[in-house]
């Protein structure tokens, strides 16, 4: 399994042409754990480990395969709150529990090795370590199946949350600014997608016209779509969609970034079963085919990426994805970009020119009909703003829309191709899915 770590799977270069495994890999199963706000520290059936096992079991059951048939596990260390997690990111120094919860593993961390051992998966031959986040793992799973590294591959995304305020503590409690943080934190930038995107969003409004509060219709629509998503946090906690008034009166975090522009950290896990298109045909669900995966990792030219840089990066990522999929903007029926901070989503929408939206058009587009039953069902998943920060709603909705099983969220427009991503403008990946392999 060590060889798996040298595996070159990324499609992160230009000019690679149409993906060699286009339509030959499929997603045949998906599984979601419940989505809780936090782990309570007591319920052992609600740990992050238990939720990952549950999500895997659901994905296998949905596809109709058994644990013995799984030969690939792709699971990053969980993303509770990242390196500056602080009090909400680590169980210790509190005493651990009985096995399998006798370390951070299973509580705040989950990885392939722990899952293989705890789930008794005997036939796994591909289980790489040191993996990136879900936005890239879906690409890795697709490439690994296409390359024959494994045939039935479970990709798992653990996303945990303990008590305590988000990303307080850790290096954010430090008096010193070390490493790359010496260029940001002395002035107050704690690092993250909020800072990456709020400055260029301000520049966006200056350049094209518009105001931060013009994001309200988008954020509200995400909440509405979340209430149509039976596995999500909002649906299960009766979180009524906010109103425009709620939005414009809500408190600021990084003014003009408001609390409702930020997704809600949750405790949850999602699993997808990737397999070959041939095998998927014999499984329980209608296969959803992978038409391309692509990644990007752009270098920031100075302290802060400005609007020009962000537009250049996202244009670049769109071009790369479209090239590998052999598709263009007019071919994409569903579009589920990342929305973890609402101030970034328009950059993707305009770069991919979904439904003809060009640079500077997004706020006007949001003001139109973007509901799932309308002509422009943008972000039909409800994303992370509408479902909690599982970072998987974009993929799950795309799969369900193409299967025709999205229920109350099922769009009325054609649903044969879908683009989904968990990505930031500088780094991450995109996944193109199709109802048909061709």
């Amino acid at each position, binding site marked *: 399994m060590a060889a798996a770590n040298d595996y070159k799977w990324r499609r992160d270069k230009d000019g690679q042409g149409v993906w060699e495994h286009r339509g030959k890999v499929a997603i045949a199963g998906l599984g979601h754990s419940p989505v809780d706000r936090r782990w309570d520290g007591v319920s052992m059936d609600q740990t992050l480990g238990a939720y990952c096992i549950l999500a895997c079991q659901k994905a296998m059951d949905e596809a109709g395969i058994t644990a013995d048939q799984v030969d690939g596990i792709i699971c990053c260390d969980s993303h509770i709150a990242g390196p*500056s997690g602080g009090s909400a990111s680590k169980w210790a120094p509190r005493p651990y529990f009985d096995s399998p919860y006798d370390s951070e593993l299973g509580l705040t961390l989950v990885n392939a090795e722990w899952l293989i051992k705890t789930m008794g998966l005997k036939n796994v031959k591909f289980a790489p370590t040191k993996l990136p986040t879900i936005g890239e793992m879906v690409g890795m799973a697709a490439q690994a199946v296409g390359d024959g590294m494994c045939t039935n591959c479970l990709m798992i995304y653990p996303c945990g949350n303990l008590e305590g305020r*988000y*990303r*307080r*503590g850790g290096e*954010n*409690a*430090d*008096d*010193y*600014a*070390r*490493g*790359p*943080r*010496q*260029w*940001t*934190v*002395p*002035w*107050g*930038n*704690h690092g993250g997608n909020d*800072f990456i995107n*709020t*400055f260029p969003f*301000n*520049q966006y409004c*200056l350049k094209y016209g518009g105001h931060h509060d013009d994001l309200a219709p988008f954020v509200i629509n995400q909440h509405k779509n979340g209430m149509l998503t039976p596995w999500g946090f909002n649906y299960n906690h009766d979180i009524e969609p906010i109103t425009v008034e709620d939005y414009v009166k809500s*408190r*600021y*975090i*990084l*003014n*003009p*970034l408001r609390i409702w522009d930020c997704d809600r950290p949750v405790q949850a896990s999602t699993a997808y079963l990737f397999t070959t298109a041939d095998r998927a045909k014999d499984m329980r669900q209608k296969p959803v085919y992978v038409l391309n995966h692509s990644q990007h990792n752009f*270098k920031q*030219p*100075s*302290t*802060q990426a*400005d609007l020009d840089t962000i537009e250049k990066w996202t244009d670049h990522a769109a071009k790369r994805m479209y090239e590998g999929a052999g598709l263009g903007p007019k071919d994409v029926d569903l579009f589920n970009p990342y929305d973890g901070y609402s101030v970034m989503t328009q950059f993707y929408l305009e770069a991919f020119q979904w439904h003809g939206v060009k640079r500077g058009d997004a706020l006007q587009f949001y003001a139109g009909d973007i509901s799932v039953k309308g002509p422009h069902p943008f972000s039909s998943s409800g994303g992370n703003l509408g479902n909690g920060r599982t970072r998987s709603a974009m993929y799950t909705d795309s799969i369900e829309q193409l299967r025709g099983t999205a229920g109350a969220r099922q769009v009325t427009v054609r649903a044969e191709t879908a683009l989904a991503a968990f990505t930031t403008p500088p780094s991450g990946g995109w996944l193109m899915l199709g109802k048909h392999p061709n």
Partner: protein
Amino acid sequence: MPKLIPVADELSKPFWDAVNAKRLVLQRCTGCSKLQYPPQKTCQVCGNAALEWKEVSGKGHIATYIVIEDGRLNRRMPDQPYNLALITLDEDPTVNFYSNLPGTPPYKVPVGAAVEVTFEDVAPGQLIHEWCVVN
């Protein structure tokens, strides 16, 4: 409450040494002349490893700003709300810096205004570069 204190490393030591002497120096590529900040091992444009330190004028403009009302840095909590502006360098506007704009009240930031570099104590013997609106 003081700001977080930068910890110089091998790459950044010449920069912080200059700041402590109240000079703003940036890396300049000896091949293509591109200025860059923060420091890197090679030129981000041409890949050249031969970089020199060049003192710059310390004049810039405010591109945009946010106001940190509920940040995550313990040490800066008492300062909230405070401005965080994005400053472009006049010599090369693709080079930018953060600034809390000392002297400018929160929310009262003149976007587009000229600024000049200043130096602020954050710990004994440690300055950081800041920017003030030019009146």
